[in-house]
Protein backbone atom coordinates (compact mmCIF):
# COMPACT_ATOMS: atom_id res chain seq x y z
CA UNK A 1 0.00 0.00 0.00
CA UNK A 2 1.26 3.44 -0.80
CA UNK A 3 0.45 6.83 0.63
CA UNK A 4 1.47 10.33 -0.23
CA UNK A 5 1.98 13.02 2.36
CA UNK A 6 1.80 16.64 1.24
CA UNK A 7 3.53 19.02 3.61
CA UNK A 8 2.74 22.70 3.12
CA UNK A 9 3.48 25.86 5.03
CA UNK A 10 0.56 27.14 7.07
CA UNK A 11 -1.26 30.12 5.61
CA UNK A 12 0.39 33.33 6.75
CA UNK A 13 3.82 31.74 7.29
CA UNK A 14 6.33 33.62 5.16
CA UNK A 15 7.67 31.40 2.36
CA UNK A 16 10.91 32.92 1.02
CA UNK A 17 11.39 30.02 -1.42
CA UNK A 18 7.90 30.45 -2.84
CA UNK A 19 8.59 34.17 -3.24
CA UNK A 20 11.86 33.50 -5.07
CA UNK A 21 10.12 31.02 -7.41
CA UNK A 22 7.41 33.61 -8.00
CA UNK A 23 9.99 36.24 -8.96
CA UNK A 24 11.78 33.77 -11.23
CA UNK A 25 8.54 32.92 -13.03
CA UNK A 26 7.88 36.61 -13.58
CA UNK A 27 11.45 36.98 -14.80
CA UNK A 28 10.74 34.31 -17.40
CA UNK A 29 7.84 36.37 -18.62
CA UNK A 30 4.96 34.36 -17.14
CA UNK A 31 2.28 36.91 -16.34
CA UNK A 32 -0.67 36.30 -14.09
CA UNK A 33 1.02 34.30 -11.31
CA UNK A 34 -0.59 35.70 -8.18
CA UNK A 35 1.35 33.77 -5.56
CA UNK A 36 3.60 30.73 -5.14
CA UNK A 37 3.92 28.51 -2.08
CA UNK A 38 6.48 25.69 -2.05
CA UNK A 39 5.98 22.48 -0.10
CA UNK A 40 7.09 18.85 0.02
CA UNK A 41 5.70 15.59 -1.27
CA UNK A 42 6.71 12.47 0.66
CA UNK A 43 5.83 9.05 -0.76
CA UNK A 44 5.47 6.18 1.69
CA UNK A 45 5.46 2.49 0.83
CA UNK A 46 3.62 0.91 3.75
CA UNK A 47 2.70 -2.53 5.03
CA UNK A 48 -0.88 -3.41 4.19
CA UNK A 49 -3.18 -2.54 7.02
CA UNK A 50 -1.26 0.53 8.17
CA UNK A 51 -3.97 2.66 9.71
CA UNK A 52 -4.76 6.29 9.02
CA UNK A 53 -3.89 7.11 12.58
CA UNK A 54 -0.45 5.50 12.18
CA UNK A 55 0.26 7.71 9.17
CA UNK A 56 -1.02 10.77 11.02
CA UNK A 57 1.28 9.89 13.87
CA UNK A 58 4.23 9.77 11.45
CA UNK A 59 3.28 13.21 10.18
CA UNK A 60 2.96 14.75 13.62
CA UNK A 61 6.11 13.18 15.03
CA UNK A 62 8.45 13.72 12.11
CA UNK A 63 7.24 14.42 8.59
CA UNK A 64 5.72 17.83 9.32
CA UNK A 65 6.65 20.48 11.86
CA UNK A 66 3.14 21.42 12.95
CA UNK A 67 4.38 24.74 14.34
CA UNK A 68 4.71 26.01 10.78
CA UNK A 69 3.40 23.29 8.48
CA UNK A 70 0.15 21.53 7.62
CA UNK A 71 -0.01 18.05 6.17
CA UNK A 72 -2.48 16.15 4.04
CA UNK A 73 -2.47 12.38 3.55
CA UNK A 74 -3.54 10.73 0.33
CA UNK A 75 -3.82 6.94 0.35
CA UNK A 76 -3.21 5.12 -2.93
CA UNK A 77 -4.85 1.80 -2.03
CA UNK A 78 -3.77 -0.37 -4.92
CA UNK A 79 -0.79 1.47 -6.26
Amino acid at each position, binding site marked *: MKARVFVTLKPGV*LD*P*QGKAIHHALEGLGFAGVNDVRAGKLIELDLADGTSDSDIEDMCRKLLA*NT*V*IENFRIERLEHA
Partner: protein
Amino acid sequence: MKSAVIVFPGSNCDRDLAVALEQVTGRKPEMVWHKDADLPEGIDFIGIPGGFSYGDYLRSGAMAARSPIMRAVKDAADRGVPTIGICNGFQVLTETGLLPGALMRNAGLSFVCRPVSLKVENSQSLFTSGYETGQTITVPVAHHDGNYQADEATLDRLEAEGRVAFRYLEEVNGSARRIAGILNDTGNVLGLMPHPERVIEAAHGGTDGRRLFEGLLETVAA
Protein backbone atom coordinates in the same frame (compact mmCIF):
# COMPACT_ATOMS: atom_id res chain seq x y z
CA MET B 1 31.38 22.12 35.91
CA LYS B 2 31.01 18.82 34.06
CA SER B 3 29.67 19.38 30.58
CA ALA B 4 28.56 17.24 27.66
CA VAL B 5 28.65 18.15 23.97
CA ILE B 6 26.29 16.15 21.78
CA VAL B 7 27.74 15.03 18.44
CA PHE B 8 25.53 14.22 15.45
CA PRO B 9 26.65 13.10 12.01
CA GLY B 10 27.19 16.45 10.33
CA SER B 11 27.92 18.48 13.45
CA ASN B 12 30.85 20.77 12.70
CA CYS B 13 31.07 23.15 15.65
CA ASP B 14 31.31 20.41 18.28
CA ARG B 15 35.07 20.85 18.64
CA ASP B 16 34.84 24.65 18.80
CA LEU B 17 32.28 24.33 21.58
CA ALA B 18 34.42 21.75 23.38
CA VAL B 19 37.48 24.04 23.20
CA ALA B 20 35.46 27.00 24.51
CA LEU B 21 34.10 24.94 27.40
CA GLU B 22 37.49 23.52 28.27
CA GLN B 23 39.15 26.95 28.20
CA VAL B 24 36.53 28.50 30.42
CA THR B 25 35.77 25.64 32.81
CA GLY B 26 39.20 24.02 32.87
CA ARG B 27 37.60 20.67 32.21
CA LYS B 28 37.27 18.77 28.94
CA PRO B 29 33.63 18.12 28.11
CA GLU B 30 32.35 14.62 27.45
CA MET B 31 31.64 14.19 23.74
CA VAL B 32 28.40 12.20 23.50
CA TRP B 33 27.43 10.41 20.30
CA HIS B 34 23.84 10.82 19.10
CA LYS B 35 23.16 7.07 19.23
CA ASP B 36 23.89 6.86 22.95
CA ALA B 37 20.73 6.54 24.97
CA ASP B 38 22.12 8.10 28.15
CA LEU B 39 24.19 11.06 29.20
CA PRO B 40 27.24 10.46 31.41
CA GLU B 41 26.55 10.64 35.16
CA GLY B 42 26.54 14.01 36.88
CA ILE B 43 26.41 16.30 33.86
CA ASP B 44 25.95 19.97 34.88
CA PHE B 45 25.66 21.41 31.40
CA ILE B 46 24.68 20.19 27.92
CA GLY B 47 25.76 21.82 24.67
CA ILE B 48 24.16 21.07 21.31
CA PRO B 49 26.56 22.35 18.69
CA GLY B 50 26.23 23.96 15.31
CA GLY B 51 26.61 22.22 12.00
CA PHE B 52 24.44 20.43 9.52
CA SER B 53 23.22 17.35 11.35
CA TYR B 54 21.96 14.73 8.91
CA GLY B 55 22.67 17.13 6.06
CA ASP B 56 19.63 19.23 7.09
CA TYR B 57 17.44 16.50 5.57
CA LEU B 58 13.68 17.03 5.85
CA ARG B 59 14.12 20.21 7.94
CA SER B 60 17.18 21.59 9.73
CA GLY B 61 17.46 19.75 13.05
CA ALA B 62 14.49 17.47 12.36
CA MET B 63 16.36 14.17 12.21
CA ALA B 64 18.74 15.01 15.07
CA ALA B 65 15.78 15.91 17.28
CA ARG B 66 14.53 12.31 16.98
CA SER B 67 17.86 10.62 17.73
CA PRO B 68 18.19 8.45 20.87
CA ILE B 69 20.33 10.90 22.88
CA MET B 70 17.73 13.66 22.55
CA ARG B 71 15.34 11.76 24.80
CA ALA B 72 18.00 11.86 27.51
CA VAL B 73 18.70 15.54 26.78
CA LYS B 74 15.01 16.37 27.05
CA ASP B 75 14.73 14.51 30.37
CA ALA B 76 17.80 16.32 31.71
CA ALA B 77 16.56 19.73 30.50
CA ASP B 78 13.16 19.04 32.07
CA ARG B 79 15.00 18.34 35.35
CA GLY B 80 16.64 21.76 35.06
CA VAL B 81 20.09 20.93 33.64
CA PRO B 82 21.31 24.04 31.78
CA THR B 83 21.22 23.30 28.06
CA ILE B 84 22.39 25.47 25.19
CA GLY B 85 21.71 24.97 21.49
CA ILE B 86 23.84 27.02 19.12
CA CYS B 87 22.84 27.46 15.46
CA ASN B 88 21.93 23.92 14.33
CA GLY B 89 21.60 23.19 18.07
CA PHE B 90 18.89 25.88 18.29
CA GLN B 91 17.12 24.24 15.35
CA VAL B 92 17.34 20.88 17.12
CA LEU B 93 15.87 22.36 20.32
CA THR B 94 12.87 23.83 18.50
CA GLU B 95 12.33 20.56 16.62
CA THR B 96 12.49 18.68 19.94
CA GLY B 97 9.90 21.02 21.42
CA LEU B 98 12.22 22.25 24.18
CA LEU B 99 11.88 25.75 22.71
CA PRO B 100 8.86 27.25 20.94
CA GLY B 101 8.70 28.38 17.32
CA ALA B 102 10.69 27.29 14.29
CA LEU B 103 13.76 28.36 12.29
CA MET B 104 12.98 28.79 8.65
CA ARG B 105 14.97 29.59 5.51
CA ASN B 106 16.58 33.06 5.71
CA ALA B 107 14.27 35.67 4.24
CA GLY B 108 16.96 36.71 1.74
CA LEU B 109 17.51 33.03 0.80
CA SER B 110 21.28 33.46 1.11
CA PHE B 111 23.56 31.74 3.56
CA VAL B 112 24.59 34.52 5.96
CA CYS B 113 28.12 34.29 7.35
CA ARG B 114 29.46 37.39 9.11
CA PRO B 115 29.83 39.06 12.50
CA VAL B 116 26.58 40.72 13.63
CA SER B 117 25.70 43.11 16.42
CA LEU B 118 23.44 41.74 19.11
CA LYS B 119 21.67 43.40 22.00
CA VAL B 120 21.60 41.49 25.26
CA GLU B 121 17.93 41.77 26.17
CA ASN B 122 18.03 39.91 29.46
CA SER B 123 21.12 39.56 31.63
CA GLN B 124 19.25 37.79 34.42
CA SER B 125 19.45 34.31 32.92
CA LEU B 126 21.87 31.47 33.66
CA PHE B 127 23.52 32.09 30.32
CA THR B 128 23.65 35.88 30.18
CA SER B 129 24.69 36.87 33.70
CA GLY B 130 28.13 37.77 32.33
CA TYR B 131 26.58 40.62 30.35
CA GLU B 132 24.68 43.80 31.15
CA THR B 133 21.11 44.19 29.96
CA GLY B 134 21.16 46.40 26.88
CA GLN B 135 24.83 45.68 26.17
CA THR B 136 25.83 45.39 22.51
CA ILE B 137 28.05 42.46 21.59
CA THR B 138 29.47 41.27 18.27
CA VAL B 139 29.17 37.57 17.51
CA PRO B 140 29.40 35.77 14.16
CA VAL B 141 26.49 34.01 12.49
CA ALA B 142 26.77 31.30 9.83
CA HIS B 143 23.44 29.87 8.79
CA HIS B 144 20.92 29.32 6.04
CA ASP B 145 17.92 28.63 8.25
CA GLY B 146 17.96 31.22 11.01
CA ASN B 147 14.71 32.98 10.35
CA TYR B 148 12.95 32.62 13.70
CA GLN B 149 9.17 32.44 13.45
CA ALA B 150 6.40 31.80 15.94
CA ASP B 151 2.78 32.90 16.19
CA GLU B 152 2.08 36.38 17.57
CA ALA B 153 0.81 35.05 20.92
CA THR B 154 4.03 33.09 21.44
CA LEU B 155 6.18 36.09 20.46
CA ASP B 156 4.24 38.33 22.85
CA ARG B 157 4.69 35.80 25.64
CA LEU B 158 8.44 35.50 24.98
CA GLU B 159 8.78 39.28 25.17
CA ALA B 160 6.60 39.69 28.25
CA GLU B 161 8.42 36.95 30.16
CA GLY B 162 11.89 38.27 29.33
CA ARG B 163 12.67 35.18 27.30
CA VAL B 164 14.18 37.00 24.35
CA ALA B 165 17.83 36.69 25.42
CA PHE B 166 19.48 38.25 22.34
CA ARG B 167 18.17 40.41 19.53
CA TYR B 168 19.87 41.40 16.26
CA LEU B 169 20.59 45.11 15.97
CA GLU B 170 20.51 44.80 12.19
CA GLU B 171 18.50 42.89 9.61
CA VAL B 172 20.10 39.43 9.33
CA ASN B 173 17.68 36.71 8.29
CA GLY B 174 14.09 37.95 8.56
CA SER B 175 13.53 36.69 12.12
CA ALA B 176 10.33 37.84 13.75
CA ARG B 177 11.12 40.88 15.94
CA ARG B 178 14.79 40.32 15.09
CA ILE B 179 15.01 37.56 17.65
CA ALA B 180 18.45 35.92 17.77
CA GLY B 181 18.10 33.78 20.89
CA ILE B 182 15.39 32.67 23.29
CA LEU B 183 15.00 30.96 26.67
CA ASN B 184 12.53 28.29 27.70
CA ASP B 185 9.89 29.07 30.34
CA THR B 186 12.08 27.84 33.20
CA GLY B 187 15.16 29.69 31.95
CA ASN B 188 17.49 26.68 31.80
CA VAL B 189 17.41 26.17 28.03
CA LEU B 190 18.85 28.74 25.61
CA GLY B 191 18.79 28.53 21.83
CA LEU B 192 20.59 31.08 19.69
CA MET B 193 21.72 31.33 16.07
CA PRO B 194 24.96 33.34 16.61
CA HIS B 195 28.10 31.43 17.63
CA PRO B 196 29.52 32.63 20.99
CA GLU B 197 32.02 29.73 20.96
CA ARG B 198 33.71 31.34 17.96
CA VAL B 199 34.68 34.51 19.81
CA ILE B 200 36.34 33.48 23.05
CA GLU B 201 39.94 34.61 22.56
CA ALA B 202 41.65 37.61 20.97
CA ALA B 203 42.99 35.51 18.09
CA HIS B 204 39.37 34.93 17.01
CA GLY B 205 38.99 38.65 16.36
CA GLY B 206 36.77 39.16 19.38
CA THR B 207 36.00 37.82 22.84
CA ASP B 208 32.33 38.77 23.24
CA GLY B 209 31.25 35.13 23.40
CA ARG B 210 33.49 34.26 26.31
CA ARG B 211 31.34 36.02 28.94
CA LEU B 212 28.45 33.69 28.12
CA PHE B 213 30.47 30.66 29.21
CA GLU B 214 32.09 32.49 32.13
CA GLY B 215 28.70 33.71 33.36
CA LEU B 216 27.29 30.22 33.06
CA LEU B 217 30.21 28.73 34.98
CA GLU B 218 29.79 31.29 37.78
CA THR B 219 26.07 30.58 38.04
CA VAL B 220 26.38 26.80 37.88
CA ALA B 221 29.30 26.73 40.34
CA ALA B 222 27.51 29.06 42.79
